[in-house]
């Protein structure tokens, strides 16, 4: 990836908070890297975002259990 931007949006919901995360990016230069980006870029981004969400959730749950 060259340039990229992360998006993070929270919305209150009945049972907590809805979080929407996104990554917007420019594909790389070079045909080989562009091909890799085409095939695997989306999967990699989804993996990153899922990990971020899961870690955030775990951190908040850990914090809440300590507060109790």
């Amino acid at each position: 990836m060259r340039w990229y931007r992360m998006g993070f949006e929270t919305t209150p919901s009945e049972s907590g908070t809805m979080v929407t995360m996104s990554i917007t990016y420019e594909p790389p230069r070079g045909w080989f890297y562009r091909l890799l980006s085409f095939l695997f870029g989306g999967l990699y981004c989804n993996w990153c975002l899922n990990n971020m969400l899961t870690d955030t959730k775990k951190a908040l749950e850990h914090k809440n259990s300590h507060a109790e």
Partner: protein
Amino acid sequence: MVKMTQNEVHNKSSDPMWASQENELFTRLGADIKQGLSAAQAATLLQSFGPNAIANAEQTPAWKIFLRQFKSPLVVLLVVAASASFAFQEWLDGTAILVVVLINALIGFYMEFQAGRSMAALKKMVAISAKAFRNGKLSEINLEMLVPGDVIYFEAGDMTPADARLYNSAQLQVDESSLTGESVPVEKEPGVLPTDTPLAEQSNLLFKGTFVTKGNGWAVVAGTGMNTELGKIAHLVGTSEQAATPLEKKLEAFSGRLIKITVGLVVVIFGVGLIGGKPILEMFETSIALAVAAVPEGLSIVATLALAQGMLRLARQKVIVRKLSAVETLGGTTVICTDKTGTLTQNKMEVEALASAGGAWAKSDDAADLPLGHLPEAQYRRLLQIAILCNNSEITAHKKHLKEIGDPLETGLLKFALLLGEDINALRHKSPKLSEIPFSSETKIMATSHKTPEGKMVFAKGAAEELLDCCSFLLDADKNASMTPQRRKAWLAEAEKMASSGLKVIAGAFKLNTKDSKVLTKDLVFAGLFGMIDPPRKEVPAAIRQCRDAGIEVVMVTGDHPAAAKAIGRQLGIIESDDADVVLGKEMPDYEKLKAADKTRWAAAKIFARVSPKQKLDLIRVFQERKAIVGMTGDGVNDAPALKKADIGIAMGKHGTQVAQDVADMVLRDDSFASIVVAIRQGRVIFDNIRKFVIYLLSCNMSELAVIAIVSLLFLHFQLKPLQILFINLVTDVLPALALGVTAGGPLVMQQKPRNTEEPIIDQRRWRRIFFYASVITAATIGAVYFSHYTIHAGNDWDPALCNNILFFTLIFSQLFHVFNMGSMALPFWRTEVVRNRYVWFALGFCFLIVALLYNIVPVRTALSVSPMSVADWVVSIGAGLLAMVIIRLGKHLKFFQNEEQ
């Protein structure tokens, strides 16, 4: 507070819930109607009683879904073939066939399991909330968090979240048809009833799962989850499964017809093979393999998977589609009847203007320019009183942020009062409410009666035309003047003027009710007008243009003022000029009395104003008579009939009532019109993908049939082996086809006319295309064998094993490359939606890997009767496959038949 289980609550006293005295029952339940439960109390009770949820019927376990895959008749055929192989001691063939059966079952299991998971994930997204009074504050919580002792508030359109005892109500009516079968809403009011009162007459109780149709009220929760009347019968009802969609039914019927045709052909091939002297076991296995390969038996489950995945994708884009069949219908939508407020506009109401007999004020950039300087104080104060007291919403400041609960119009009025420095809570405390006539879309007026320091007073607000009819006086300076017809006309004109500048106009009135009259909306004193701005959503004009390009009509149907509707309609591009026809509700006769000219006028009009929910229903009927596929938005409880009648009922998820959401086919989580267009686009894409998948599969299967039939009928000395047929079926049919099912839409999806929902999946035009594809692939496959023999192996004798291998691999490559022919012709090849679908490339890559493995793993190669080939033969095979693809694309380019985009 004494901790009790649910049974103890019910059995502790000899008096049942409806017969107990309020104080006694509330003490038993540990309820405090002044403060509500604390967070700690609620948490403890939740631990004791569990969540307020009806236990779901058991989901089908995974192992049952897996076993179900073996119930297919074609699987039975394969097992018969395997048994026959074993009987003839063809151990390798028999084992290989069983492996194919297992792999097929695994693929079918995966698809069905994924579809089920998508549906389950969707159900979790539609969580219902309840308004609970806790820690002295009213807030919305997940319905599952309610516990006995909770104090709840509900109003028209809400679903009753739990069994509860009513202690305060205003004209409350509840639809209890789900419990009692009584279709007429039942009136509810507080009180103590005799012990022997039957369920249908327990008018002081509310029951989980029923709907509030009118009025509002407060109650204390007495039963939750399975300890409710609904819970008692839930185990009898079970969960309702999604019925098969029309598309699935069409595909099932289609598969059934194909099976019959294929069986006929296969019998012919079997017979011809025997006549040609082929061994009986080989012909038997070939016939069965061909029957299995030629019939795309996974069609309907793949369609289900595509629909379910489509629903999940829409959910991420804030559209919850509640029924699979709605995804299909979306693609054929021809008319969208949309609300204005909240759907086309942001529903962020702000007071921008005030008008009273003594003066007027309009918001300017000067923050110091307050209404008080423009209106006489008496009128200004009276208008603020109406804004605060004739109002059920709540607004609190929380860390520099305003938290709003209630209707956006009402919270807009409160925000205005707050910004002007009014102490809302103090005023409400000084003037407690005695009774209320809630707002209804029929009367368009809300009225409340209060005990104020001035005495008993009534305050009312609503549509100017309706409220002015209830006013006999006009507040002029600080005294009441008579409301003459001229004055009434002048105020209507003023309201029209404000509305034509795009403002939502609310009239305010009041009266002293010293005689404590129950008739609140008579002889009122007109106080003035509030002009509220509700800006249009930024994304809507582009969405409306998209609809126009897609051949979809957009019709605005609103309860608002016609001038305001027209102003917004012009702004958004729904109408082109101010001369456009606007149909008023009062000009709309009942459906039964409509003449042909009326129906023509309705069908042509783009704006309907001051429309009642019943008139929405009539409008849908008129459109449906003209064979339109109608999408209708709705948010109120009275919109339920229209939402059910429409082909696509669209409810608002943010500000819509639970009733509307429950009956609708689709729920917009952001209430935005643009989301409807997104959903329609997605519906078209999904259907296109399913069609691509079917065309691809049929053309591949037909080419296999054709190759075998031609070779058999011409008694050529090479033929595909049964296991090779099964291998092609498993490798080339499934993966690229599944990848096609998740293609993003082509560029012209929203530039085509809506699909005719009556047309078959594969019409004559598409059958011609399938025959063409299959013919080219067949010709390339058989042609490659001859080409190889007469060029690379010129002079040699025919080698049946080599011919077989070339036939086998050429067919594989032709079918793999053929997937690219499913792309749009509107774009260059390398930019079509299929080429840009990375899952297609993954599928092809995987298939090539499998082919490479099969060639290099000796036992597999032996089982599939494959022997080493020269590089030149590989070049011929791959080249023939590519040539088939090029010829097909050329044929589409030269328009041998009509393409989708024409």
